[in-house]
């Protein structure tokens, strides 16, 4: 029993690159000299010295095990501190934690990705896998909705994904002058004919209300509920099922999730304040 490594103690990694994605959103690329493998959809607890830890999903290419990427929005104290860190500085990392996307079950079928805002981050590793191995999935569709044109994440990357064969659909809640794309909620992008529902799997990440309606729409378009997966968010403090903060009814989001098949969370999402 004794002598096991303490899952509460972080390792130290150095920041190799810092990318300012948009106002208040920064990607940090960390050097992982020993290699860092993860499943797309998993997260790490990132520690900013003197402030604390927050759960951040891994947003990099899983093939690059020497580089570990996270995309952070400055919301609270810790995430603000993380976005202020500079290349060469060090931070603490605990992970990879949680259950990622069930990619094995998609192999050979259609892959439907639906993201809202920064919810695109944990789906980016999936998109990179699809780009690297075009035969892995049959068709790949990405539906991405965000608040306004200024908050469209990864325009260049999405262009690259498009060229690699991913059908990328983008919408904004409210347009500004010059925006030529779609306006409206992300569910309006989802149309019959984009994918073959009988062989499709959907992966969703974004605000809870966005996921709830996206799941409904995709289910309505014929994707079976058990093949719709959602990345849930709750207040994860320890990341390993010890602290009790991320309870979501019978689930501990950090340990049992963050990715859940729709039938496991559908009824819970209807209850206010759970």
């Amino acid at each position, binding site marked *: *029993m*004794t*002598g*096991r*490594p*303490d*899952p*509460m*103690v*972080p*390792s*130290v990694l150095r920041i190799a690159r810092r990318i300012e994605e948009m106002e208040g959103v920064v990607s940090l690329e960390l050097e992982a000299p020993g290699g860092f493998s993860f499943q797309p959809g998993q997260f790490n607890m990132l*520690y900013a*010295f*003197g*402030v*604390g*830890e927050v759960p951040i999903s891994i947003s990099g290419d899983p093939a690059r095990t020497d580089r570990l990427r996270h995309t952070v929005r400055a*919301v*609270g104290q810790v995430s603000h501190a993380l976005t202020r860190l*500079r290349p*060469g*500085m*060090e*931070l*603490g990392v605990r992970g990879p934690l949680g259950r990622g996307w069930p990619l094995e079950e998609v192999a050979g079928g259609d892959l439907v990705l639906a993201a809202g805002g920064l919810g695109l981050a944990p789906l980016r590793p999936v998109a990179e896998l699809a780009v690297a191995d075009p035969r892995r999935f049959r068709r790949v569709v990405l539906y991405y909705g965000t608040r306004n044109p200024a908050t469209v994440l990864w325009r260049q990357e999405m262009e690259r994904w498009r060229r690699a064969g991913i059908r990328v659909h983008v919408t904004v809640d409210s347009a500004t002058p010059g925006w030529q794309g779609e306006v409206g909620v992300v569910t309006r992008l989802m149309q019959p004919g984009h994918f073959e529902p009988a062989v499709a799997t959907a992966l969703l990440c974004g605000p809870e209300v966005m996921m709830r309606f996206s799941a409904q729409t995709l289910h309505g378009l014929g994707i079976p509920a058990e093949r719709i997966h959602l990345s849930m*968010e*709750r*207040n994860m*403090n*320890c990341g*390993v*099922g*010890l*602290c*009790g*903060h991320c*309870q979501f*009814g*019978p*689930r*501990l989001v950090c340990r049992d999730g963050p990715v859940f098949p729709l039938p496991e969370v559908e009824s819970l999402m209807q*209850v*206010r*304040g*759970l």
Partner: protein
Amino acid sequence: MKARLIDKSGLQWLLDRLGSQGYEVLAPCLENGVVEAGPVTSLEELPAGVEEETEAGRYRLRFDGKEGTDLLFSHALTAMGWQRFLHPSSEPLWRAELRGGALEIQPLPAEAPRRALVGLRACDLAAISIQDRVLAQNDPRYARRRENLFLVAVNCGRAAATCFCHAMGTGPEVKQGHDLVLTELVGGGAHRFLVEAGSEAGAGMLQALPGREPEADDWEEKRARIEAASRQRRRLPEDTGDLLASSLDHPHWEKVGERCLACGNCTSVCPTCFCSRMVERTGLDGQQATHWRLRDSCFDSEHSYLHGGPVRRDRAARYRQWLTHKLHHWQAQFGTTGCTGCGRCITWCPVGIDLTEEVAALEVAA
């Protein structure tokens, strides 16, 4: 050897023996007007003859001991559970140092002294076994403290009014999880203790105890005392889990939410509540920080904080979280209920919310 009958001097011998083996001996004593576990070297420090009168939101001590046979374990429970010896209210996990952008993180060893807990009840042992399910696997700090415990339990001879261990199947008879179990006997005017072992370590200690073989009368008195302690009037319905699962939208949550103060007393005294949060404390030079784990309560508004505000905004949602977790969702998370039937949350609720009554209220259709 199956059992041993000892007198008070034999019990004192046991305390001394545990002490000489390097155990810190903790047993019930009177502290701040309540019965509470604390360090003990002599039986004189135990709350002889003291009984507690408990009801929803009420705790009073009275002294009813008859001269010459003051029971050492006449009380029913310690006011707080024993879990603070396993899962302390605050604990430093690691220390960090920052020098010109370079970060160093130094794990801090867990404090895990050898401790003998004397006077635990069946419900207290059930609570430890529940916490084992929750924490022992993933928390090496808990696991180390747990390994260093020697548990001397006591069979209850009476129940407090708030006890409902019998209905929860956790007591009052101690059946598992102990090293030794005592039953305090006074029949025939002789104050004595029937001692049985529940582990190898306990069996070793039993061998050495200065006493004699118990007789039929002793066993009969033990049975009668446990039977007396089994007479409890509170209970939870057998289908409590299903009831809670189908009651998440029940209007009664709003009613109990109006009474609940969200003070967190229930979560402080509950022997299975395990929530904790991490807190960073920085040195004045800005170059050193210590990462602490503090016990936490789901009644705190920060508990469910998610970018911008709490998920559980009102007290109704927080009370529902606590009760449904304890009595239902715990099962899915850890394969056991989270309630032992100790009744502490009933006693220490300042407005007298009684979970057995709240569950009963949910049975009434909305």
